[in-house]
């Protein structure tokens, strides 16, 4: 933590640490829970009214080319087809891109991937629209293609965009890499590759646009960031912001892509058609369309050259990270930062030289996905740590503990790790829970074809947006005359439960039980620009905005109570929904009466507070600085069981601990730990959206495997560690993304421990394990036949 930051944080020091904390730290049922168990939330697809037109998007069938001819006549002539819209129908700027303006909504000539949209059929029914899409005839002149990010950087590679294939590059220059290698006695070089992962929210992308007679439009959809969606629509529609209202409906999972371009695509297509045809239009992606058209996790190629001294201390790490962002940069321009800032993981390396490149290819595009560059960077680093320990003949845990970040050490960006680091406590929890040292001894003497192994991975995860933009949020609290408190914010709930945390913070500050709180639908016409709901930042940043609003309301209510109770404000306390005289607690006024009295006196009973995190300064030339204001820490140990005759393996045990600063809602935190770990196990073991010549070959849930209830480990032990951080309310750190990061390296390392097979390209499939075992046998037999000669 830099001095500037500490100074700032003095000004926002949290209430409550000293006194009794109600509602925070309690496992409270989520505010949207009751509706959900009753099956009653209204998702966008549940509000479809008769007479609504259906828009069906269609996309390129080639990975790179120009459209020679687009023949819409047959599609347009089909009964019940109303229109087909293309780039010519976009009233404003034909653009649907989150950061760099490199992506058109509809192609006007060039297609750079098979996910490139060409247009949308508008029909009376979904089935008709689908048939009409098949009747659209597109003729292409194909262009040369490139599908590998390293190859795409070569001078001979075809240019995906005129400006060249490197969309962004970043670097870290810490210490003196040559000096570091010269003091190393072991140097290890490895290359790691990661795959496309699909987010697979259970609800696919959907948007609905309803035009009004005054020329404005209301857009309702499944999304993470309604204000960003509005900004994109304002550009596409060439309309003033106040004429475009965006409302987030209940959203059935998101995990990243719903903060990127697909919500702009479905909402944009619906809005363009709705305004043109003056009818409500509904645009939904089916599963296949969603898996082809939305952003995925970036495949990375990562090279490490790492030097270690004879006593097992890391000396130098030279790292290259290449991101395949597909045809468009999307959020890759920020993923690259999180990746490089985490490239040496939870370890102190005095000399670091890292270079990262965000590279265009003709694959479908990549962007946000839970973890955001962290999973790839940590997979490579933790695999490298494992292999280094083996090379040094050190225990992998001991080697890690020797090098891990603890208060006083410095990470890859040279940020000083402060006393809010709970990594050692996390390690202690999982080592104890897994019976690590004892298991090590037992597993050292295994015989037979079924082998067990242990895998470890440690986590440092920079909190919130950091260098990914201004980190702010607004939260509106409105106390009604009946005492009901309506919480309004552009931050969205899409499953994480984070908004319940934001409300718990308000409840704790105001002294009012959660039963008085209601959540308003996020609506750009009503709620202030809030930035995106991403980076797990809702509780930390939104929680601070909520705290500020609650503090102001509490003060006003204390004044009203003081007047009613005929005491001074400092004599009044509000606890558990009752305002009372501290000197005589029998003299009190209940919450509903207090709210009514406040309204009767004309006291302002709504407050919208804005919180912005202090800047996270770092130097673009050296990559050094404080790109994050606090970190979440974690440790994972998994146990696997591998059948060496088939390569088939199971993860049998998971022991995991996260330092979340303060668990505002422990059950909510556990929900993120379970869910994130399982999604991470999917990434580790089975999930791969396979591209062949730029075409996604498995865009469905039969061929793209995500974990089912039969796949999750038998034993799962989760621990919450609480070392308060300086940024979040009550010391809270972020929790939603981190648990997805560690399973991939932990599984890879456990399989290596059990079998001696190191799989350096994700996912760690049984086929790769078996091939590795066979290669090992081959090597062994080569050696023995060599010896016989």
């Amino acid at each position, binding site marked *: 933590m830099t001095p500037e930051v500490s100074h700032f944080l003095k000004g926002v020091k949290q209430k409550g640490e000293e006194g009794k904390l109600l509602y925070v730290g309690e496992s409270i049922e989520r505010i949207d829970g009751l509706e*959900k168990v009753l099956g009653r939330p209204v998702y966008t697809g549940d509000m479809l009214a008769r007479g609504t037109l259906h828009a069906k998007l269609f996309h390129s069938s080639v990975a790179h080319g120009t459209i020679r001819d687009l023949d819409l006549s047959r599609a347009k002539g089909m009964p019940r087809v109303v229109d087909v819209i293309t780039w010519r129908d976009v009233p404003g700027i034909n653009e649907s891109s989150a950061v760099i303006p490199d992506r058109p909504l509809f192609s006007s000539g060039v297609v750079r991937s098979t996910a490139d949209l060409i247009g949308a059929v508008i029909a009376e029914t979904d089935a008709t629209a689908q048939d009409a899409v098949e009747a659209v005839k597109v003729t292409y002149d194909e262009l040369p293609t490139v599908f590998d990010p390293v190859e795409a950087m070569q001078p001979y590679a075809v240019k995906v965009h005129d400006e060249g294939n490197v969309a962004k590059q970043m670097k870290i220059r810490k210490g003196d890499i040559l000096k570091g290698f010269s003091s190393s006695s072991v140097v290890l070089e490895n290359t790691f590759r990661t795959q496309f992962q699909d987010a697979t929210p259970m609800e696919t992308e959907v948007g609905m646009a309803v035009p009004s007679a005054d020329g404005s439009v209301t857009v309702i959809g499944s999304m993470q960031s309604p204000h960003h969606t509005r900004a994109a629509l304002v550009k596409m529609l060439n309309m003033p912001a106040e004429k475009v209202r965006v409302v987030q409906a209940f959203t059935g999972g998101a995990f990243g892509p719903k903060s990127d371009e697909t919500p702009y695509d479905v909402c944009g297509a619906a809005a363009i058609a709705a305004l043109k045809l003056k009818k409500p239009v509904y645009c939904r992606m089916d599963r296949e369309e969603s898996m082809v058209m939305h952003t995925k996790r970036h495949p990375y190629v990562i090279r490490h050259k790492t030097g270690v001294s004879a006593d097992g201390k890391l000396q130098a790490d030279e790292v290259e990270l290449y991101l395949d962002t597909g045809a468009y940069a999307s959020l890759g321009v920020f993923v690259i930062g999180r990746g490089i800032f985490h490239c040496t993981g939870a370890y102190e390396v005095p000399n670091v030289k890292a270079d990262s490149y965000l590279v265009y290819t003709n694959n479908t595009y990549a962007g946000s996905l839970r973890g955001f560059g962290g999973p790839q960077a940590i997979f490579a680093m933790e695999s490298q740590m494992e292999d280094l320990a083996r090379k040094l003949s050190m225990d992998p845990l001991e080697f890690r503990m020797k090098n891990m970040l603890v208060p006083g050490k410095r990470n890859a960006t040279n940020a000083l790790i402060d006393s809010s680091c709970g990594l050692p406590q996390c390690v202690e929890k999982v080592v104890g829970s897994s019976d690590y040292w004892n298991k090590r001894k037992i597993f050292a003497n295994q015989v037979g074809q079924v082998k067990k192994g242990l895998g470890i991975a440690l986590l440092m995860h920079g909190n919130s947006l950091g260098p990914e933009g201004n980190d702010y949020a607004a939260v509106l609290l409105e106390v009604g005359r009946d005492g009901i408190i309506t919480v309004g914010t552009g931050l969205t709930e899409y499953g*994480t439960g984070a908004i319940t945390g934001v409300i718990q913070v308000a409840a704790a500050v105001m002294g009012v039980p959660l039963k008085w709180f209601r959540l308003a639908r996020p609506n750009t016409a009503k709620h202030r620009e809030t930035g995106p709901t991403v980076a797990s930042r809702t509780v930390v940043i939104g929680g601070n905005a909520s705290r500020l609003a609650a503090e102001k309301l509490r003060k006003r209510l204390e004044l009203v109570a003081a007047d009613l109770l005929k005491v001074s404000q400092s004599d009044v306390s509000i606890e558990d929904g009752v305002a009372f005289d501290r000197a005589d607690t029998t003299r009190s006024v209940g919450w509903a009466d207090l709210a009514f009295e406040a309204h009767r006196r004309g006291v302002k009973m709504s407050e919208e507070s804005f919180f912005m995190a202090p800047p996270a300064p770092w130097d673009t030339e050296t990559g050094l600085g404080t790109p994050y204001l606090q970190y979440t820490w974690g440790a994972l140990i998994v146990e696997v069981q591998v059948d060496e005759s088939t390569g088939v393996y199971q993860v049998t045990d998971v022991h995991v601990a996260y330092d979340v600063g303060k668990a505002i809602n422990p059950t909510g935190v556990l929900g993120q730990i379970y*869910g994130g770990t399982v999604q991470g196990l999917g990434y580790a073991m089975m999930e791969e959206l396979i591209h062949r010549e730029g075409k996604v070959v498995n865009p469905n849930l*039969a061929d793209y495997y995500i974990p089912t*209830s039969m796949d999750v480990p038998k034993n799962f032990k989760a621990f919450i560690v609480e070392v308060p951080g300086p940024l979040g309310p009550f010391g809270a750190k972020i929790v939603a993304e981190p648990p997805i990061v560690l399973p991939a390296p932990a599984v890879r390392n456990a399989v290596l421990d059990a079998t001696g097979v190191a799989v350096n390209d994700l996912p760690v499939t049984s086929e790769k394990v078996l091939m590795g075992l066979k290669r090992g046998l081959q090597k062994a037999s080569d050696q023995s036949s060599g010896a016989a000669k």
Partner: protein
Amino acid sequence: MALSKHFVTMTVNGAERSLHVDSTDSLMDILRDRLDLKSVKDGCRSGDCGLCAVLLDGKLVNSCLVLAAQCRGSVVTTLEGLVEDPLMKVLQQKFLKYNAAQCGFCTPAMLVAAKDIVSKNAKPSEDEVRLGISGILCRCTGYYPIFHAILEAAEERKP
């Protein structure tokens, strides 16, 4: 291709419903679009995600894979038809307690499956619960909160 119409009478959530359906209409289409039972979710239309699971004559099925025309005389139950069911109430409470409903999109199918498991086997093991919900995908919870909720509901309901 001409679509033939079928006249189908079935009992849905206790009420007899008669409708003309197309030969290509799935049971899911009918439940969602004609009978307004929106707890039945559409996640893939190919039987892979299980979000459209309902009870058809006492069996848990993916309603997207059943043709409505096949359902003549059948008894269909969705979450909407189980809200007064005492076992369902316990399950709902436990889902709330364990944060087993997160984005909520798989929740109706999970609850119907949970009811199916516990009503047929008063004391299911964790393995039986895993198997019982294995046709329904959830991307939020990692399934553990759902196991905990179903097992505790079964435990509490035992006489």
